[in-house]
């Protein structure tokens, strides 16, 4: 889904919250907590939100958990830090980040994994999530669109109006192989600056739900697909890390990380 540097998450990051102002972060966070209570067996209350963006979920999750946020956009993290000055935020890529600790819950929502360009990247990300989970911990991933449910030619209009700015995001979807292609136009109108127009194309990797389960299992997590996730039609993918000794071998603690793994630098979509 990502062009070199997505406009939305970088240049337009200051407008991001206004664009998604109708998203129910409170309700979604509640659902995430419920799932964590139900599936997490590691006993603690630490939570890592990968691709945390401006920290809207963390704002709620931090009430019940000790949270850390991770994102690869400095601009988004700037907004997040402003919102949650006491929370630790890390600027890093979900495929390659290394934290010196593990968590009871690792979440990655709002289709953020769709920004990865290849299945190899997805595999790296899942393995990395697993690596940062405590035994018995759970990864909660809200996947990008299922290829079976993809609608080409779909126009999606988001708008937001307030005194200081009128914001419009209009996207059009098409398909190229396994990738969704979103052509996105933004209009940002401000009485003080006039109207600015931006355009970008985002590619998203569409992976079937079955394949996602396999990838999660390959990462050493016990996968589970929930048809009803945070948003209609998206579902959720859970992966619990076994507590048994046998599967610990696969990914366990950060120190077991093999340094020969390529760090996937500048891929075409990233």
């Amino acid at each position, binding site marked *: 889904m990502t062009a070199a540097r997505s406009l939305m998450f970088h240049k337009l990051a200051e407008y991001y919250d206004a664009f998604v102002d109708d998203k129910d972060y409170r309700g979604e966070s509640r659902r995430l907590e419920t799932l964590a209570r139900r599936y997490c067996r590691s006993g603690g209350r630490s939570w890592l939100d990968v691709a945390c963006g401006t920290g809207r979920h963390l704002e709620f999750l931090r009430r019940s958990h000790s949270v850390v946020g991770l994102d690869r956009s400095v601009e988004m993290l700037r907004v997040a830090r402003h919102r949650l000055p006491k929370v630790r935020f890390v600027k890093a890529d979900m495929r390659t980040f290394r934290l010196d600790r593990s968590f009871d819950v690792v979440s990655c929502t709002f289709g953020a994994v769709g920004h990865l360009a290849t299945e190899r990247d997805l595999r790296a990300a899942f393995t990395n999530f697993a690596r940062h989970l405590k035994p018995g911990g759970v990864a909660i991933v809200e996947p990008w669109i299922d290829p079976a449910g993809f609608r080409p030619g779909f126009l999606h*209009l988001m708008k937001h109006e307030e005194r200081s700015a009128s914001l419009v995001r209009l996207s059009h979807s098409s398909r190229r192989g396994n990738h969704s292609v979103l052509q996105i136009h933004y209009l940002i*109108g401000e009485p003080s600056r006039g*109207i600015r127009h931006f355009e970008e194309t985002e590619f998203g990797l569409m992976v079937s739900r079955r394949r996602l389960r396999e990838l999660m299992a390959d990462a050493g997590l016990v996968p589970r697909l929930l048809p009803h996730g945070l948003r209609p039609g998206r579902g959720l993918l859970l992966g619990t890390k076994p507590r048994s000794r046998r599967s610990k071998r696969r990914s366990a603690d950060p120190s077991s990380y093999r340094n020969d793994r390529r760090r996937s630098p500048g891929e075409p979509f990233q």
Partner: protein
Amino acid sequence: MYTDLAKFYDLQYSWKDYPAEVRRLEALARRYGRSGGSSWLDVACGTGKHLELLSRHFDCAGVDVNAEMLKVARGRLRGVPLTRGDMRSFRLPRRFAVVSCLFSAIGHLTTERDLRRAFRRMADHLLPGGVLIVEPWIAPEDFRGALIHLRTYEDPSITLVRCAFSRREGSRSVIEYSYLIGEPRKGIRYLREVDRGLMVPPVRLLKLMESAGLKPRFLRRGFISDRGLLIGVKPLFGSRRGSGSRGWADAA
């Protein structure tokens, strides 16, 4: 202007109540017209939405400067002669009981000289006793500058976004429009245009209308708030002050 947008023009203004406007226009024509005729010329007729309704009761004709808009109008109207022409210089071989110029089309003119020419052209196409109905552009004292105005339209076949930024340059209004046109099969197009318009106080408009040889009147209640309507009646007899043949010469 409107060249690429003509097809979508009517969707943009789907909020506009053309039947109500036409009822009012017809009432005004009956009230002020003394020519006894039933012919109507709509100048800057656009896609012909007013003419479509007016042509039920009047013998109509239309003029517009934009070929794309006229193309849409031709598809809509049967038996209504439509002519491509500039409101400052058009000449038709006949005169009309009513000439109208609506939706602030005169606001596209940028100098008082142009406005004067346009009024004269319109007046010259009136029969004696005929009535000119002009919906003016906003008055300078009512114009609020540095505003953003967003309008969107969605149906299964198209998504339209129009974002306008209006500001003032002296007595001119400057409106920058940014359009997004999204269609399922074509994707999204972005278009931008800038409209400059002269803002003239109603008092001054009345004077200009008068010098075109019409007996002017300003009605505060128009179709859009802050716009009002201008009515100019052409005298039945004589008194061709500043109009008539001079007007023809002026246009040449």
